[in-house]
Each structure stands twice: as structure tokens, then as C-alpha cells.
């Protein structure tokens, strides 16, 4: 841009803004074809571009804008109706203008842009309109058609800026913009000149009240008159003085410096606290407050409403839904939500992709929608809101929803999941598979989406800026894609942790929860060497930070597990100590450390030392590596087992004196319920569980186990869910998870069991899960009878 004259640069900037507005207006115009306001506004904007391009000798641009203007003038004069076809042509014209502008920006010339085909479309549209109009009202149409387009524009009833004025929309001289209120009052007759004079004199003598206030309080002017004068003053100021354009680089520099200032402040405050001098402490606190406000202010300058990137989407949706023959209504909520400029840029493409995907795959064809009892027009909702230091942006459609079974099947086909994992998995975890590279469930590949590129890119892009992506879907009701984005790139919420002798920083967006391991009630267990933790009954793979960093490996007691989520996987990071959460300023890390891959950056900690920010995704990938290795060895051993026995994984429970094993594949969750929450429905015991009524069956009753009821306020249950129904099996105690690698196995002799086996050197009974479930809920399988998903235990 530097090589261009300042005038051209400003023209480009302004025109881009205008074009975005025109885009929005055109799409809006399609919705309300009769809005003369919209037509006039579009007309004015195009006219400005035309005028300026003529002035700057961009003849092609002028010609193109002129063509568009001619068509618009017909719409404006009511000679021709607004039809979708007209809008399409006008949008194409705007695209043409855009490409000329970018050509000017890049090469300083407009010569290699083809405008003839667009102009041909424009003329075709005008002729079509003429033909229609002539047929309808020949007398009215004839003069309009013969008016030379240039003249048509000159005749416009709307007052237009002269072209040169459009180039440099310089404010009028300031004196005229802001007349003193006294003068205004005298002019309007609201106050006498001598009263204003004496009030001014009072001000000179040190009266700090405003002129209007003085006059009011002394009864020299009427409130209405003062108000009117103030209003006369105000709007002019807001146009001329309230906004300036600032170089983004300058803002970035300022933001960096404020970052430094925050750090210096932190260090100073710490030092001053140690000295303990009251005066110094006060000054330091004041400095602290000023710094915080300054930081906030500077951050605000970089904030822009998300509307900036949303504004392009109505156009995207319109074009796409038209080409697909779908009807889509766009709803935007929270478009004033602000985000850091750099983040907006980074979110733009992922968001566009999600929107295209939602229109292409989410929302069904009108016929299918009608058949499903929905309105023919689908709704796409964009929602943005603040949530705990983050901004959430949602793309929600009311389409068919994600097909979880298909995703699971596909994931198994692609080797991303093992078939036996699937029944155990949370619905959301299965849906998250769509973010894996190369994953696409689209039956047909369209030129919009379905090629298996995209969702993983969306995820990578969002994670690169420290955000997260998730998806949730209800079959038949729609899908919600959710982006969680930090407010700014430069400052993040983070947890500081200790590991070894060093302090590390973990971005808080990845942290789900913290668990303290005391070694008694909570402990780290090992599955053939791989550390795991039972988090509410589910095994959480653990990564030891000290081991990962190649440091001395510490003990398993008195440590913390940070439950982290990245890359759609959950894992626990074992650290020595979790200190606190704080806002840290992210510093780029020297490029030589990028290859290590474990660090996302560095920051200056409160004590002035450098702290490394851990890259959670890369830690996750590391944990997968070990998980994959484990899986391989597990598969190896299970192959060995299948030769000898079944090799299935079992949940071993205690029921009275007996040990009962349940295939782990059939277990959805392990829960503990307070004893007093058990209620009765008929002869059955039930508990309320996640908005459902969960029937309970006591294995001790089912199996006729004798022995005392265990003491305690809670009962341990094994929850089994399928197809939205759940039952809970009450056991006395969860003992362990074991591999069934034994050969000693006998078939069942007793009701409710499928057999007996020796597991961990003890005789253990194998539960007939189907029977147990039917005992709890006789109707459990009736809805699923045709489904093959039944797990025969």
C-alpha cells in the first residue's frame, strides 16, 4: 500500500468498507424488496465508488460501477422489480468491483480484471426488466429506458457528495462543527447575549460549572433551549471528532508495552510489599490500578465486534443455499460481542467453514424437512457470548443432526477407534471424531464440503489461538458447533504449576478439573506400567510431566492431576503442585525451541523469572503415543489370550462374599448414590439420575447372595445405558478391573450367571448382564429389539 498515493489507499479502505455494507444491504433487500431506503443506500454507495474511480482514472472500475448503478436506478425508480436474479447479478457486480480493488491494491492497476461478462449479465438483467416493464406499462417504462445511464445518476434525488469530497471526506472546519453553546443559545434566542457574557466572565473567574449549567441555575435560560443547543452541538462532534483511524501496528506496540508495564508493576508491588512502607504501598497500589485500567483501555482499542466477520456470512449462506436448493434463515445473536482483532482474523475461516458445512450437511432439503414435520425453511443460528474469560461462538442448525452410529462405524473403519471401545464411549466423544484428520461422513462429496478436509483444520486453527472446538447434536433436532475463544492472544488465563524445581504454566482453557492424589482415597494405578486414574469410574490416562520433560520422576503421593482436554481427548497431567491462576502475557519463544514441541511459549512470572507455557495438545499427542503403544501391546496380549481364553476386560465387584465380574464393555459409568436418594416406584427401587428415572437392581437379591448389607451412606452402582435407557446394578463394592486371561472356566449352573472363572487367583462369577438388566427393567430391550447393538454377555 505504501507505493500508492495516500488518496488511493484511502479510497481502497473506504470502498472495502462500503462493499461489505452493500453486500449486507443486498441480501437484506432480497428479504424486503420494497425497501426504498435500502435501494437508496446501495445506490449511494455505488455512486460514491463510481465517482471516485472516475476521479482517480480507474476507468474499468468506473464502467462496472456505472453498470451496477444503472440497474439500481431502475430498481429505485420502480421501473423494474427486485428479484433474486437481480440481486445475484448485483452481487456478482460487487464481486467484480472487489477484484478490481484488490488488483489495484496489489499491482496498482485494474487492467487484468475482466468486467465484460459481468456487464453483460447486468445488461441482460436490465433488458429482461425492460421487457417485463414494457409489457406491463409501456408508457412508464419507455422514458426510463431511454434515459442515458449517466444522466440517470445525475438526476438522483438523493443529495450526493461530489466526487472529490468522497476521496477525502475531510471534516469541515472545526469552528463550524462546534459552535460554543453560548453562541447557539444567543442565535436561537434561548438566552440574552449579556447573560452569556456574564456567565463566561464567571467561568474565567474560576467557576468550574459549565456554561449551560450556569445559565440554567441562574434562570437565564430555559432547560429546553439549553438541551436543544446541546443536541445541536453533539451530533456534529460525534461525526467529526469521535473516531480516528489508527495503525494496527501502533496498537500492537502499545499493547506489548502495556504488557511490560503490567510485569514491571507486578514486580514493583511485590518488592514494595516486602518493604512494607505505607506510603510506598499506597503509591504502588495506585500504580497498579492505573496500569490495569490502561491495559484494559488498550485492549479495548483492539477489540472489534464479531459482527465484523459475521457480516460476510449472510452472503455466503444465500449463495450456498440457493445453489443447493435449500431455504435457510439466518439468526444472529450477540453480534456486538467483542473479540481481539487478531483473533477475529483467526476465527473467520473456521467460522465460515462451519457455516458452509451447516448449510450443506446440517440443514436438510425442504422436502425432507417437511417430511420430518419441520418447516421447509431451516434456521441457522450464530450466537456469541462471554463465558468465564472466554468468548463462545456457536453455529447451530436445526437440521438432521449428527449420526453417531455412522460416525462410530466410520471411525472404526478408519482405524481411529476399536469396535469394542464404541459402546463404552460418551456420545460426545464419538461426535468429536469428526475433528480427526481425514474424517468425513458425507455420503457424497460436494464442492462445498465432504472431502474430509476442514473440520480438522477448523480444530487446528482454533487450537492454535488457544481456543477449543466441540460439537453436540440431537438426532432430528440439529447440531451445535461451539468455538471457545480466548479474549485475546496476548494475555491468557493460566494455571501455574510446580514440577521438579521449576514452575510451568498451563493455559486454563484446557483444564477441566484438578484432583489431589493423597495416595489413600485417591490414587494412581498402573495398567501394565501405564499410569491411570479412575475419574468417576472412567479410566483417565495419565502423563507425568516430570517424566515427559526428562526430569527425575517423583512419587505418586501428594501430587496433583490436572484433567486436561485437547485434541478431543482427555488425559491427566501429573504435577507436584498447583499454585494459582493468573493472567500471563504470552511471549514468543525463541524459534530454536519450537522443535521440542512441548512449549507453546514463555511468559514472565510474577517474580521476574521466565516460565515456560506448556503446549497441551502436544502433551496430549504424547500421551496418545504411549496410549497407542499400550493399545498395541494390549492387542498383542489379547490376541495371545484369544487363543487361550476370551481376553475380555472385566469389572470385578463384590456382592456379599462373592466376586461378580461384569464385562467392562457393557459398563457405561460407575456411580455412587446416597442411600437416601433411593426411592420406590411400585415394587422397584429407583433413583433420579440426570433427569431420568433410573431403575436399580440389587445384585445381592438377584443372585441370592447372603450376607449383611454393607454399611455406609452411599451405594455403589454400575450404570448401563443403551439407546437412551439406563439401568443401575447395585453392588457392594467395586473391586478392580481385570483381564480375563484364565482358562479355568465353567459354564453356569446358577440363574443370572453365565459362568465362573478364576480371575486374579480367585473364583469369580460372570454376570449374565442381559438377565440382570431385564430384572431391573423388563422393557429395556423392547425398544431395541431390532437393533444389533445388544451386547451378549
Amino acid at each position, binding site marked *: 500500500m505504501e507505493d500508492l498515493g495516500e488518496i488511493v489507499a484511502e479510497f481502497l479502505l473506504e470502498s472495502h468498507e462500503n462493499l461489505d455494507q452493500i453486500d449486507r444491504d443486498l441480501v437484506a433487500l432480497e428479504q424486503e424488496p420494497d425497501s426504498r431506503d435500502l435501494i437508496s443506500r446501495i445506490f449511494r454507495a455505488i455512486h460514491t465508488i463510481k465517482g471516485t474511480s472516475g476521479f482517480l482514472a480507474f476507468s474499468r472500475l468506473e464502467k462496472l460501477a456505472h453498470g451496477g448503478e444503472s440497474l439500481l436506478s431502475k430498481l429505485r425508480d420502480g421501473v423494474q422489480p427486485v428479484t433474486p436474479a437481480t440481486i445475484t447479478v448485483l452481487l456478482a457486480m460487487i464481486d467484480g468491483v472487489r477484484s478490481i480493488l484488490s488488483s489495484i491494491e496489489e499491482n496498482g492497476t485494474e487492467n487484468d480484471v475482466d468486467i465484460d461478462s459481468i456487464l453483460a449479465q447486468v445488461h441482460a438483467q436490465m433488458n429482461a426488466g425492460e421487457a417485463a416493464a414494457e409489457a406491463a406499462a409501456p408508457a412508464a417504462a419507455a422514458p426510463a429506458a431511454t434515459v442515458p445511464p449517466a444522466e440517470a445518476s445525475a438526476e438522483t434525488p438523493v443529495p450526493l457528495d461530489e466526487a472529490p469530497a468522497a476521496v477525502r471526506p475531510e471534516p469541515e472546519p472545526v469552528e463550524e462543527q462546534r459552535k460554543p453553546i453560548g453562541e447557539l443559545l444567543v442565535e436561537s434566542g434561548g438566552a440574552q447575549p449579556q447573560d452569556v457574557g456574564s456567565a463566561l466572565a464567571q467561568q474565567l473567574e474560576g467557576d468550574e460549572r459549565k456554561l449551560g449549567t450556569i445559565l440554567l441555575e441562574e434562570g437565564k435560560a430555559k432547560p429546553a433551549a439549553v438541551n436543544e443547543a446541546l443536541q445541536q452541538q453533539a451530533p456534529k462532534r460525534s461525526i467529526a471528532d469521535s473516531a480516528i483511524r489508527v495503525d494496527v501496528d501502533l496498537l500492537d506496540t502499545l499493547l506489548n508495552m502495556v*504488557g511490560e508495564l503490567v510485569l514491571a508493576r507486578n514486580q514493583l508491588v511485590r518488592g514494595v510489599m516486602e518493604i512494607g512502607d505505607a506510603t510506598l504501598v499506597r503509591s504502588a497500589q495506585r500504580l497498579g490500578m492505573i496500569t490495569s485500567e490502561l491495559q484494559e483501555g488498550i485492549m479495548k482499542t483492539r477489540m472489534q465486534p464479531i459482527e465484523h466477520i459475521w457480516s460476510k456470512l449472510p452472503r455466503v449462506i444465500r449463495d450456498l443455499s440457493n445453489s443447493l436448493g435449500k431455504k435457510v434463515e439466518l439468526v444472529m445473536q450477540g453480534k456486538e460481542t467483542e473479540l481481539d482483532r487478531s483473533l477475529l482474523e483467526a476465527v473467520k475461516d473456521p467460522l465460515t467453514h462451519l457455516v458452509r458445512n451447516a448449510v450443506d450437511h446440517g440443514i436438510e432439503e425442504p422436502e425432507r424437512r417437511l417430511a420430518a414435520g419441520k418447516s421447509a425453511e431451516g434456521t441457522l443460528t450464530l450466537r456469541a457470548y462471554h463465558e468465564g474469560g472466554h468468548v463462545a461462538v456457536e453455529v447451530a442448525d436445526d437440521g438432521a443432526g449428527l449420526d453417531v452410529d455412522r460416525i462410530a462405524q466410520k471411525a472404526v473403519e478408519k482405524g481411529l477407534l476399536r469396535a469394542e471401545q464404541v459402546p463404552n464411549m460418551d456420545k460426545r466423544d464419538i461426535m468429536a471424531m469428526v475433528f480427526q484428520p481425514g474424517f468425513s461422513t458425507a455420503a457424497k462429496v460436494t464442492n462445498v464440503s465432504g472431502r474430509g478436509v476442514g473440520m480438522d483444520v477448523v480444530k487446528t486453527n482454533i487450537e492454535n489461538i488457544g481456543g477449543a472446538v466441540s460439537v453436540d447434536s440431537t438426532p432430528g433436532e440439529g447440531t451445535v458447533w461451539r468455538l471457545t475463544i480466548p479474549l485475546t492472544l496476548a494475555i491468557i488465563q493460566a494455571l501455574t504449576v510446580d514440577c521438579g524445581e521449576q514452575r510451568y504454566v498451563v493455559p486454563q482453557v484446557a483444564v477441566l478439573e484438578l484432583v489431589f492424589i493423597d495416595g489413600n482415597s485417591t490414587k494412581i494405578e498402573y495398567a501394565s506400567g501405564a499410569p491411570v486414574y479412575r475419574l468417576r469410574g472412567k479410566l483417565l490416562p495419565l502423563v507425568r510431566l516430570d517424566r515427559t520433560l526428562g*526430569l527425575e520422576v517423583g512419587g505418586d503421593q501428594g501430587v496433583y492431576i490436572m484433567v486436561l482436554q485437547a485434541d478431543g481427548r482427555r488425559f491427566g497431567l501429573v504435577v507436584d503442585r498447583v499454585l494459582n491462576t493468573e493472567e500471563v502475557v504470552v511471549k514468543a519463544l525463541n524459534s530454536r525451541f519450537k522443535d*521440542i514441541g*512441548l512449549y507453546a511459549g514463555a511468559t514472565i512470572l510474577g517474580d521476574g523469572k521466565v516460565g515456560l507455557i506448556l503446549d497441551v495438545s502436544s502433551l496430549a499427542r504424547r500421551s496418545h503415543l504411549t496410549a497407542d503403544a499400550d493399545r498395541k501391546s494390549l492387542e498383542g496380549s489379547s490376541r495371545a489370550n484369544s487363543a487361550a481364553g476370551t481376553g475380555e476386560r472385566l469389572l470385578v465387584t463384590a456382592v456379599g462374599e462373592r466376586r461378580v465380574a461384569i464385562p467392562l464393555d457393557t459398563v457405561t459409568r460407575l456411580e455412587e448414590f446416597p442411600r437416601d436418594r433411593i426411592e420406590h416406584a411400585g415394587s422397584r427401587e429407583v433413583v433420579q439420575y440426570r433427569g431420568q428415572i433410573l431403575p436399580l437392581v440389587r445384585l445381592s437379591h438377584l443372585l441370592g447372595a447372603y450376607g449383611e448389607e454393607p454399611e455406609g451412606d452411599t451405594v455403589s452402582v454400575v450404570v448401563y445405558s443403551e439407546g437412551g435407557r439406563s439401568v443401575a446394578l447395585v453392588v457392594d463394592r467395586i473391586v478392580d478391573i481385570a483381564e480375563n486371561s484364565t482358562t479355568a472356566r465353567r459354564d453356569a449352573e446358577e440363574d443370572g450367571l453365565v459362568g465362573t472363572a478364576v480371575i486374579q487367583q480367585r473364583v469369580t462369577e460372570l454376570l449374565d448382564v442381559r438377565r440382570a438388566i431385564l430384572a431391573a427393567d423388563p422393557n429395556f430391550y423392547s425398544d431395541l429389539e431390532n437393533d444389533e447393538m445388544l451386547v451378549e454377555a
Partner: protein
Amino acid sequence: MASRQFATFEVAGQLFGVEVDTVQEVLSYNEYTPVPLAPPAVGGLFNLRGQVIAAVDLRVQLGMARKALQGPVMNVILRGDGEPVSLLVDKIGEVVDLDDERFEPPPDTLSGPTRELVVGTFKLDGRLMLALDVNQAVDTYRATT
């Protein structure tokens, strides 16, 4: 006669020098943050007025064992390629003005890691100064044996 200015410093009793305009500043610093899994020549990170600087242990680069970073250590901060890098040295010397005629290529007897870092020898009064190749000196991925 052309002459050049060198900032000099000592590591293990040997005098080294780099051209003055490659040096941003010289300072001593106390606390370094180790970077686990980084190449051994990385001494650590420190905070230079809010900027995170990587300190390269010249001792390790020269093939010597690394010394524990305790107490203040002298840093020669080089402008580097866009991002400043620091060389950890034992002692800072003077800035010397040297004529090109005092320059000689490194002696053939010089071998090992040092040879790769040194571009030449300057004959000073009473001692020799080895001129370092700045890029090689801060390249922590250079194989050190």
C-alpha cells in the same frame, strides 16, 4: 589500514572476540529458567526487560562440560537474526580496535568443536584472541562432541 572493533570475553582462560556491531549489550544475570529437552548447549531462559532471551552456554558449545549456573553469570547478548541470543561467558574483556594485519586464519593445530566456531586468530600484545563466528556460536543444534 582497515581495522575492526571486537568485544572480547573469556571462557576457560581463553580470550574470544566478536565484532562489536553484533553485540546488543553485555550484562550479568542471576536466574535462568532451564528448558527441559532442549539441546545441552542451552543454558536457560531469562527475562531481559520483558523479553525472553535464550542463553547459550559457550562452554558447552566449545565442547567443555557445562558449569552449574549459580550466582551471576555474564551474558554477551547478540542481536541475532530477529531475536536476540545470549552467550554465557566467564568474564568480559575490553573492546579492542584491531588492524586486519594482526589477523591470521586459525592455526592448523586447532581442532575439535572450537575449530568450527573460530574464524581466525588475532595477535594481541601478550595473548591471542580467537574471533568467533557468531552464527555458529549460537547454533545449539550444531553437533557438540
